């Protein structure tokens, strides 16, 4: 294609072959780009599972296919962002301040628009399903308020978060117009949130349990569609609105959109608490609640920590082994063979061993003659003959996972093992979809009032395609409507926009599908299996057991923390929203800040945060110990940092916890939690979002050199 050839004709005619060639080389580039993002985390997970834990990868074919689909999906989605969503947001942002919408001046309309956009984005990408998964083990007796919010109040929770995000975007837009710095917002927000956190921590146990949920809400609200759209919008507005030399560059909205939902959820919890409007509060006639007194202040200490105690009890009764009956099973042939062997040798054949399951806590001592020692026999225990080692399923593909149904039906996001056992309604041994949504009646019976298991509000219980359409189409429709009808401006390349939006939908759909086929099973099995570093477990979907890797559980837990650290690093690098943020930063600063700088800093931060989060779960630490000090430190860091790094750093906190990180991290958190007695898996995500702020600000302080003092004033005039 030379320059001469093109100068006369208006459009260039390409042969089909040329077209295919162009498309092929283009797609190759894009796929390679995504592989560069994803390879680390995938390789790491596989290497860890196979080499460090020494376990085979179950459903390996399905996982491999899923990963391919993720990569293709990411390539489509990022292209969709580049062609469709981001230009749309930027065009709208740069038009909005200059024109009146239906005769109303720009500022009020922009603000209203910001609110609608923020609120709508939350409904489009509700991450509440993730939070429900994290709270799957919450016991209504122990944390009635948290349980209420997650179950019967889930619809309202989404509304609260939506309003929170709406107000955040509104304030963010107002900030652009007025040229305000982000720092005061941060100071005020962090102070209010810290005070509320301390209040909730120490005033009442029921309020305390909500803290993890509230802080995690802030981390998960901003998804891979919202972030690029809001960023692009901000950039558009800031291109137009002159702010008198201040370095407002369109960032900061995501920060506010992470802080406000926390506040909203806390307020919601306080409201429910004060109005006594939560599960089995005052209105309850149940005996165990009537005795509890106002707000359950007379609850026995045991009941208040019911979940933890229960988990601990299970853990102790089984000697660290708590597995499904299936694991103890042997085939008929095996049974015959063992019988024969026992008859012949009075010993178990090689490869088989005894496992004892304790169900009662009674022992009978039998003193030994001539000694003060005694033999202790255990009652109510059962011994099983089990195979040594474990047996992974032979299937390469999970028979329950079918691509065709995944488009319209959501795969179960989390494994049954993490769900409370008492919700198994039809007693078939597993928790069917729908059974995880239940309520406990005042008389103590379980009521599966919503047997279809669907929330009435917007939820993530959508299939891959449905979810993608929901996340993208309504938002884009609103933006296009405002742009074309409200502002009477046609985008320059309508065809590009439409193709971009379609690409985004296709990409998102494939991405969702690939995550549930590939990343979630991989993350789940690793999350479950990494526990084998300090506890005896039944490997994911396998029969049998592996023994703990280290005798000292502290060492094993440290390995788990290290695993979480590297997992956080790799998963973050693959996050699409972070990639979009990095590219935006690069674009805004004309390349002065390299995308890599931000990505690496954020990834390190998330790694630190997730490492801390795993430590929190593994050692059962209190969340506020881990949250308040970093935020106080952040106040100081924010104070001494330059405005642009404050903007990038705080914004990156909101984008880190996306669709790749969350399933991996939650699966691991819940897996470890189930072994250590920490039933709810909250807190890891909020820690994962505070980490990157710290590292970005620190890196900012390290790399940013002060503008050079004009030491040398030597004349250096070159000509005339």
């Amino acid at each position: 294609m030379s320059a001469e050839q093109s100068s006369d004709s208006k459009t260039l005619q390409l042969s089909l072959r040329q077209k295919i060639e162009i498309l092929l080389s283009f797609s190759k580039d894009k796929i390679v780009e995504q592989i560069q993002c994803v390879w680390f985390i995938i390789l790491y997970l596989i290497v860890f599972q196979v080499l460090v834990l020494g376990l085979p990868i179950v459903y390996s074919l399905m996982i491999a296919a899923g990963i391919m689909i993720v990569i293709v999906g990411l390539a489509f989605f990022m292209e969709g962002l580049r062609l469709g969503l981001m230009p749309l947001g930027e065009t709208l942002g740069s038009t909005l301040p200059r024109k009146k919408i239906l005769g109303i001046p720009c500022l009020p309309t922009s603000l209203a628009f910001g609110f609608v956009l923020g609120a709508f984005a939350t409904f489009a990408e509700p991450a509440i399903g993730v939070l429900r998964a994290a709270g799957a083990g919450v016991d209504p007796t122990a944390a009635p308020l948290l349980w209420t919010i997650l179950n019967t109040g889930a619809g309202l929770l989404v509304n609260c978060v939506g309003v929170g995000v709406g107000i955040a975007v509104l304030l963010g837009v107002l900030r652009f117009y007025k040229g305000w710095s982000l720092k005061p917002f941060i100071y005020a927000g962090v102070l209010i949130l810290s005070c509320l956190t301390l209040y909730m921590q120490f005033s009442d146990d029921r309020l305390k349990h909500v803290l993890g949920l509230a802080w995690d809400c802030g981390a998960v609200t901003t998804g891979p569609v919202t972030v690029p759209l809001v960023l692009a919008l901000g950039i558009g507005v800031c291109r137009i609105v002159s702010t008198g030399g201040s370095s407002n560059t369109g960032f900061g909205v995501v920060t506010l959109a992470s802080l406000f939902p926390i506040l909203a959820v806390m307020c919601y919890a306080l409201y429910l608490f004060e109005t006594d409007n939560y599960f089995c509060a005052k209105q309850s006639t149940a005996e165990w609640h009537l005795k509890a007194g106002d707000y359950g202040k007379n609850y026995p200490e045991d009941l208040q920590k019911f979940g933890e105690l229960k988990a601990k009890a299970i853990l102790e009764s089984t000697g660290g082994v708590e597995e499904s009956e299936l694991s103890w099973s042997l085939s008929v042939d095996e049974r015959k063979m063992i019988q024969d062997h026992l008859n012949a040798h009075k010993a178990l054949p090689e490869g088989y061993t005894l496992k004892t399951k304790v169900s009662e806590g009674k022992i009978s001592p039998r003193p030994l003659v001539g000694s003060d020692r005694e033999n202790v026999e255990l009652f109510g225990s059962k011994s099983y003959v089990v195979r040594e080692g474990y047996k992974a399923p032979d299937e390469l593909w999970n028979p329950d996972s079918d691509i065709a149904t995944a488009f319209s039906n959501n795969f179960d996001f989390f494994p049954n093992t993490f769900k409370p056992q008492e919700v198994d309604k039809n007693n078939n041994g597993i928790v069917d979809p729908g059974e995880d949504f239940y309520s406990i009646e005042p008389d103590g019976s379980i009521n599966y009032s919503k047997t279809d298991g669907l929330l009435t509000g917007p939820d993530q219980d959508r299939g891959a395609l449905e979810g993608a359409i929901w996340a993208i189409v309504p938002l884009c429709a609103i933006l296009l409507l405002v742009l074309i009808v409200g502002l009477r401006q046609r985008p320059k390349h309508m065809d590009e926009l439409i193709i971009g939006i379609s690409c985004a939908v296709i990409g998102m759909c494939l991405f969702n599908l690939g995550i549930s086929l590939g990343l979630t099973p991989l993350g789940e099995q690793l999350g479950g299996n990494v526990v084998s570093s300090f506890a005896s477990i039944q490997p994911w979907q396998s029969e049998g057991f592996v023994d703990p890797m280290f005798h000292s559980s502290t060492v094993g837990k440290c390995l788990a923390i290290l695993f979480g650290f590297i997992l956080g690093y790799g998963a973050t690098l693959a996050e699409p929203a972070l990639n979009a943020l990095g590219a935006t930063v690069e674009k805004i600063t004309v390349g002065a800040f390299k995308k890599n700088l931000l990505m690496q800093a954020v990834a390190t931060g998330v790694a630190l945060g997730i490492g801390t989060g795993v430590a929190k779960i593994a050692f059962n630490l209190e969340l506020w110990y881990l949250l308040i000090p970093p935020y106080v430190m952040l106040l100081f860091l924010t104070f001494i940092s330059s405005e642009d790094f404050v903007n990038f750093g705080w914004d990156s906190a909101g984008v880190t916890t996306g669709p790749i990180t969350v399933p991996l991290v939650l699966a691991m958190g819940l897996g470890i939690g189930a072994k250590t007695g920490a039933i709810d898996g909250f807190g890891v995500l909020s820690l994962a979002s505070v980490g990157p702020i710290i590292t970005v600000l620190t890196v900012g302080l390290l790399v940013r050199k002060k503008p050079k003092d004009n030491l040398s004033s030597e004349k250096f005039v070159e000509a005339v």
Partner: protein
Amino acid sequence: MNELNTMDKVSLLTLILPKESAPQVSNALAAAGAKGIFQVAARGSILREGGFLSKMFPPPAPEQFLLQVLVPNGLREALIEKAVNIGKLDRVGSGAIFAINCDSAHLSSQFPFAGSRDTDDLFSSIPTLEAICCICEKGVAEDIAQAALSAGAPGPTVTFGEGGGIRDKIPLLRMTKGPEKEFVWCVVDRSESNEVFTNMARAGRITEPGRGFMYSIPVSDGIINVTSTVSSSSHGASLEQVISVLDELKGGKEWRSGTESKSASLNTTFLHDLVGLYCVVPRDHYSEVYDAVLEAGAPGVSTNFGVMTDLGSDSDSESCNEEWALVYTSLSPGSVDGVLNKVSSKIKDLDIDRFAFYTLPIPKALTYLGG
């Protein structure tokens, strides 16, 4: 109403300033009578020193602004002096200012231009500097800037923009190639310009198809004091300080071009004596102008977006930036008038009342020439 005023004694004054001092200088220029100061965000360059840490956490490059303003030759000296004083441009690393004689300029009556539209004496200054501009695909600029640095150019400056040509003639497949382009600007001494030009061209592989376009313009006078931050803090003196001391010791800048033999000349033919055609229009109209230029037969077009710092909407209490676009194409001298006429008639049709054309001489350019 849209008659063009044609002038031929006009200079294009270009400034490269660090982010900190840009507002001051542009205000001072406006106060001194310049109008229509076009400001583009830019970044400076840093010398990379490899190392694991700086690869993982690449240090940010200095943020800069590129300012361009059309001034009548009569005002030129005064403005340069003013800018040098306010921006302290005589100090190391404080920025650059240089002026380019325009072949001709055509301004609409509404286009912001310094008051006196009557012509003045033409400066008879002999160009001693050369501005090199390279338009390349996004992501390539870093390599080109590094090549320019290593060839001795002080602080290449990079701006973002859009560009196209062939791309816009492909119906839908055009989206496989984004319009985003990077522009590398650097101003070097004439004696060094060949080597820098060649090095940049080689680093950017400009002579291969679809890689970009680069050209040089003679600069009549200016002060170039752009820094290149060195990414390691272990150096006592900045590179510029070292070089300027060397200059003094050697009594000139001749030593810099002493190693001419090592740069093998590019095995290609340059395009000689082209004319660069620049249109300045408000951003809202840029896509029409862009299309018009392409329709008129220009092989390729590139655009820089920026704001006119001294113009703001005065109607609202909220101050709005006026966004403008600088649409650039390079043509052979013979076809300039044709394109000019076509585009200006198009502009008349569209009733755009604020725009300007100017043309600059381009003695040397390089791109893929087909075949």
